[in-house]
């Protein structure tokens, strides 16, 4: 592993009003890794994702990306540092076509490599190629998730943040999306931070995992170790492999 991690979060606290949502979180993502963050509803996973993007701002601690503290930068400038996210709830632009959505993803690069990248994401998600001129809002949930990931990839990120890509999707689609994530990681060396509730799939995919409870990291380890841990099995894998 390289000496300095690509993303390093140290002692980050974040608040919604007076409520402390993150209570001093430490997390590292090394270049070329898939790291997953597991936790129940309201544990603060998505908040951490949003805090990396500066909204809400980290009130304490540091978020260092590529050797630079980004915790004071405005959101749109963070997005220009080759970090991309597929946010919670996908947040695609429903009245714009798939193609226009993808163009928005490429906005950071000012249109350089647009054709090439369009081909690339359509290769990853052939469904999107069929739907290029359809409005985003008319896509199915799985297709919208694909679009959200594809849109994030259009900016050629070094680090891809994915917030619950499996939420509300059929198992077959989840499998498809996870296999694309694996492909991106193995073929292109893309670094991925994956927030998930679907612990089984996420831990199987990830190199390392973090478990978050009530705004704090309670456990960390390799994906395989966490899958075997009895605590994780009891709390997140109840009922086995679902």
């Amino acid at each position, binding site marked *: 592993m390289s000496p300095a991690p690509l993303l390093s979060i140290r002692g980050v606290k974040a608040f919604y009003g007076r409520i402390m949502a993150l209570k001093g979180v430490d997390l590292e993502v090394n270049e070329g890794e898939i790291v997953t963050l597991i936790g129940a509803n309201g544990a603060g996973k998505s908040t951490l994702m949003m805090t990396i993007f500066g909204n809400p701002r980290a009130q304490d601690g540091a978020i260092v990306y590529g050797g630079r503290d980004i915790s004071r930068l405005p959101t*749109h400038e963070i997005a220009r540092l080759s970090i991309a996210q597929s946010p919670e709830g996908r947040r695609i632009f429903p009245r*714009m076509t798939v193609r226009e959505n993808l163009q928005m993803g490429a906005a950071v690069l000012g249109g350089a490599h647009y054709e090439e990248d369009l081909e690339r994401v359509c290769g990853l998600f052939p469904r999107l190629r069929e739907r290029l001129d359809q409005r985003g809002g008319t896509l199915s949930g799985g297709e919208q998730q694909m679009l959200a990931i594809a849109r994030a990839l259009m900016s050629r990120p070094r680090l891809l943040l994915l917030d619950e890509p499996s939420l509300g999707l059929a198992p077959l689609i989840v499998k498809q999306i996870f296999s694309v994530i694996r492909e991106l990681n193995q073929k292109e060396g893309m670094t991925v931070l994956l927030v998930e509730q679907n612990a089984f799939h996420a831990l199987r995919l990830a190199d390392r995992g973090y478990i978050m409870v009530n705004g704090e990291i309670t456990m960390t380890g390799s994906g395989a170790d966490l899958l075997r841990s009895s605590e994780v099995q009891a709390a997140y894998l109840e009922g086995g492999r679902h």
Partner: protein
Amino acid sequence: MTNLARATTAAADRPGTARGGARAVPQAPSPQGAMAAALKDAALAALVMLGLSFPILLLRSDVGSNNELVLTPRVPLVVAACAIVFFGRLAIAFVRGAWRRSHPRRMAAASPVGTRPVVGRVAGLLGYALTGAAIAFPFLAAYALGGLTPARYWIDLAILVLTYLMLGWGLNIVVGLAGLLDLGYVAFYAVGAYSYALLSTTFGVSFWICLPVAGIMAAFFGILLGFPVLRLRGDYLAIVTLAFGEIIRLVLINWVSLTNGSAGISSIPRVSFFGIPFTREDDGFAATFGLAFDPMQRIIFLYYLILVLALVTNAVTLRLRRLPIGRAWEALREDEIACRALGINTRNTKLTAFAIGAMFGGFAGSFFAVRQGFVSPESFNFMESAIILSIVVLGGMGSQVGVAIAAVAMVAGPELLRRLEILQVVFGEHFDPNQYRLLLFGLAMAAMMVWRPRGLISQRTPSVLLHGGGSPAAAPAEAR
């Protein structure tokens, strides 16, 4: 669940909702039930009519011989009105029921996806047709009415329509594209008008120099409004912009030393043909071009001036929509948070929308000033903002052709209703359409909101279409 299963559930859902919608109208299982429902519905409508009749129809007020108020009850009229509503409503219910039975599932079959490009193409053709009609209009009117002078009323009306059209298109950038609800757009119209009025009367600067200055001034005010409202959305934004419009008007009234207060600024120099005045003199327009002098020449020139200004507004908007900034506006309307996450500077995006929208308002304002020759704060009250916003909403937010149709309907509509003498055939000799025009207009507006709640043209045309070669790549590559 597989995709197939998902598709079947979706398909199972759809007819369900269609049936649910139809349940209000009699199409219930048994004919007796349908009859009862229709009767109930009709009775309810008649009751509403009765309620409405009391204040409007029941008593006729006249001035008697001793100047006293004479009230004549008109019970038969009320009964007739209620009966018309009752049986009319009943008839509608039966026609609808028959239609549903003979055309089952029509509505469910309509596909929202396949029809879209066709809608775009039709709107595009309609746009060209309207442009052609607008260019030919003064001559058509003159031909139809036997000369330019008799056609003056119609050309003046067309100028008014085009002014509002330009304002509508300008506001469409802010409201339709960027999704920022602006209730104070008239402020920029006022800034443009006063810019020209003050510059021309104080310094004698010509219209053609003032026009860009007025645009820049208005854009500056747009940014001034934009800064404090950057974090606001929806209702809150609407309130602040409403206040902004009022502030501008009140400043114009009270800053007497600059604006001459509510008396306004008069004797603003009239428009010239690029420096050649429209006068009878030897250096006037007619003499220079060897024509006979006709005061209508100035009016025709004004008509084409506002037509060109409006078309420029339209062309710029259509162009911007294809550029990254235009796409950013639309994305901002859809989802501000996603925009920021994609590296869009939402502050600058909003400010440019306000500035460019305001700039066109400023152009229209200076045109207004040069046309009227007189400006006063009275011309820039909230009603104007409301009309302009109605044009945008009625047209279908973001649709250029829709806004054009709505501008004609909103501005020319009430004027045309003045001339509905034909209704006298129905309502008798004493019917004066003038008195009913706003009522009719209100009815038309209400009907619009029922049948087309998202505006005349509610389908958004994509800024890039189909699998064309270079164009999608060229668009993002152009900027930055």
